[in-house]
């Protein structure tokens, strides 16, 4: 049986046009999806029952034991950290915030290690953004800065920006100009019309130079800025000013390099400057599936988008102090629950060492690098495959994700809901 219009549960593109072939509650094939979507749907590594670490290995336990362990761990902890949230749906994130408030812990999503700086910059200067549909139908100049969509968001170019025919562009990619700015020639750079190779850490200077040229102060620019010749910068500004509609997309190459959120601020201000001549927009390439949703959910519930500390009883937010990496590096937290993320694969060694020292519970459908640091892992249904819920695309459009097969395991919402109910009971609420 074919299931149509299935939403992909992998990256921030949330492609909503997959066709999944299902027989006997098993997924047999994925149409229209990229290689990442295919691997996600066809993955066969899933755990079937919760596991607990023993002296020399692992033992299977039941859900009741696993949930009891987690509830006790969180209630006993002085400063628990609830981290992850990007791989799960909005409803589970809601319960997470309630749980965190109840135990006076810290809740943080993967945002603090990806587009956290983008949010800080947006808080300073605003976000001239748009939906991906606008880009597809209107943009004749597309700039990818510090990101490689061909590897991380494979269908971004074919579906949302470059190759798809637009309502106002008959010849699709032949009418569009693609500019890639990166420190190395990536796969995306190979299909770009203009590749700007920038010296590592030179983004701020190049953005400032572009702003100066847009302002008509190009004569004060030195012949080369961070390895980019002035003539190329002038050409790009001309291209941007001549555009009918321009779209900038940026990734971790801009947010996590020297300058951090000031880079993004500068990029937003460049977009603002260009919008005095034509129409320009800027969109962060949110990577991990529903990471945008975690910011939305946290913001509407606590007022802050990520790294929220409830130890004072009220929401307190100070990225750099209350973000997961800092809490772990300072060895501050004494228990950690990780859901829908794999910090074991991405966090600095110091943080991972602390994770291994403290009681850690991982809620994840498959064994990951974080499993190696966990005391208990609780497998759950995958949002978008055998669990349903709400997720946000990278441009802030919410989708209702459906399930394509009947679940054999509880969903994140069910597991967290059970935990929260038991916590309330223990607290006499």
């Amino acid at each position: 049986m074919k299931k149509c219009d299935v939403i992909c549960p992998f990256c921030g593109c949330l492609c909503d046009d997959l066709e999944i072939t299902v027989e006997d509650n098993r997924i047999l094939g994925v149409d229209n999806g990229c290689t990442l979507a295919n691997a996600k749907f066809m993955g066969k590594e899933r755990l079937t029952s919760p596991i607990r670490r023993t002296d020399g290995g692992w033992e299977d336990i039941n859900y009741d034991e696993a949930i009891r362990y987690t509830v006790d761990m969180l209630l006993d902890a002085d400063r628990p950290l609830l981290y992850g949230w990007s791989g799960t749906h909005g409803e589970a994130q809601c319960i997470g915030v309630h749980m965190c408030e109840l135990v006076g812990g810290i809740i943080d999503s993967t945002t603090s290690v990806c587009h956290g700086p983008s949010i800080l910059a947006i808080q300073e200067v605003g976000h001239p953004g748009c939906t991906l549909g606008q880009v597809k139908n209107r943009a004749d100049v597309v700039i990818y800065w510090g990101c490689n969509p061909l590897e991380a968001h494979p269908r971004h170019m074919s579906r949302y920006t470059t190759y798809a025919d637009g309502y106002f562009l008959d010849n699709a990619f032949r009418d569009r100009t693609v500019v890639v700015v990166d420190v190395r020639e990536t796969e995306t750079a190979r299909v770009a019309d203009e590749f700007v190779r920038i010296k590592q850490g030179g983004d701020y200077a190049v953005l400032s130079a572009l702003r100066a040229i847009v302002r008509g102060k190009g004569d004060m620019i030195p012949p080369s800025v961070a390895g980019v010749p002035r003539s190329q910068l002038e050409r790009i500004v001309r291209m941007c000013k001549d555009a009918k509609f321009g779209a900038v997309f940026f990734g971790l190459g801009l947010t996590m390099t020297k300058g951090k959120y000031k880079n993004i601020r500068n990029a937003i201000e460049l977009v603002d400057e260009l919008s005095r001549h034509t129409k320009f927009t800027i969109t962060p390439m949110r990577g991990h599936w529903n990471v945008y949703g975690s910011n939305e959910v946290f913001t509407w519930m606590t007022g802050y988008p990520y790294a929220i500390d409830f130890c004072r009883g009220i929401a307190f937010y100070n990225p750099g102090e209350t973000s997961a990496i800092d809490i772990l590096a300072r060895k501050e937290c004494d228990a950690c629950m990780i859901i829908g993320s794999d910090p074991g694969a991405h966090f600095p060694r110091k943080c991972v060492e602390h994770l291994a020292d403290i009681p850690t519970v991982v809620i994840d459908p498959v064994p990951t690098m974080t499993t190696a640091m966990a005391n208990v892992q609780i497998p759950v249904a995958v949002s978008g495959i055998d669990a349903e819920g709400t997720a946000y695309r990278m441009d802030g459009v919410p989708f209702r994700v459906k399930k394509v097969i009947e679940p054999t395991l509880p969903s994140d919402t069910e597991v967290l809901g059970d935990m929260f109910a038991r916590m309330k009971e223990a607290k006499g609420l």
Partner: protein
Amino acid sequence: MATSLSYYLREMARGEWLRNFLFVKTAPYETPPHFRDYPRLTGKECTHCLACMMICPTPGAIEVLKEDEGWNPVIYPGHCIRCGLCVEACPEGVLMSGRILESQFFENTGYTWTFHLTVDSTLCMRCGNCSVACPVNKEEDPQLAATGTGENDEVIMRVKGGELRILHEEKCTGCKTCEEACPNSAIRVARVIEAIHTAEEGG
């Protein structure tokens, strides 16, 4: 040294030599009719068969673009080497350059071609750039071209069952757009082109 100098002076000071040198009679500058300039449009209707793009040996020299309701080839002089192969390959005579069309007509020459598409599935990201960009796919499945969502199996290639599948190789016109759109060089178009000479009618 002195002898040769005086020889030259004597030779060039002659009135006849000076007359010939200063008032030489040459033919007025005129482009000869056989000169192959950049291909021009003849005004005949382009059917979007893309034979011109298929045969063009130079990357980025020619593409067929949509103008209002019709299609027309566009030549990029910076890339074009004026080989004239596009003029010869076009079955509708949309392009002209020098005497190519005339000699082709009188000598009954032409080309036949077939194409073979190969996909290296270890390099392919299934990003769909090729199947969305392919101009034949655009005609067969406008939905695929507009949104990346494959609606039917009449296209040359599309992502199906987790693989980029070649469904209708025979529809390929060899324009190489897929190759250009592929960042990993995962898709390759092999062209088998043969120059033919048909016998004159009744011959």
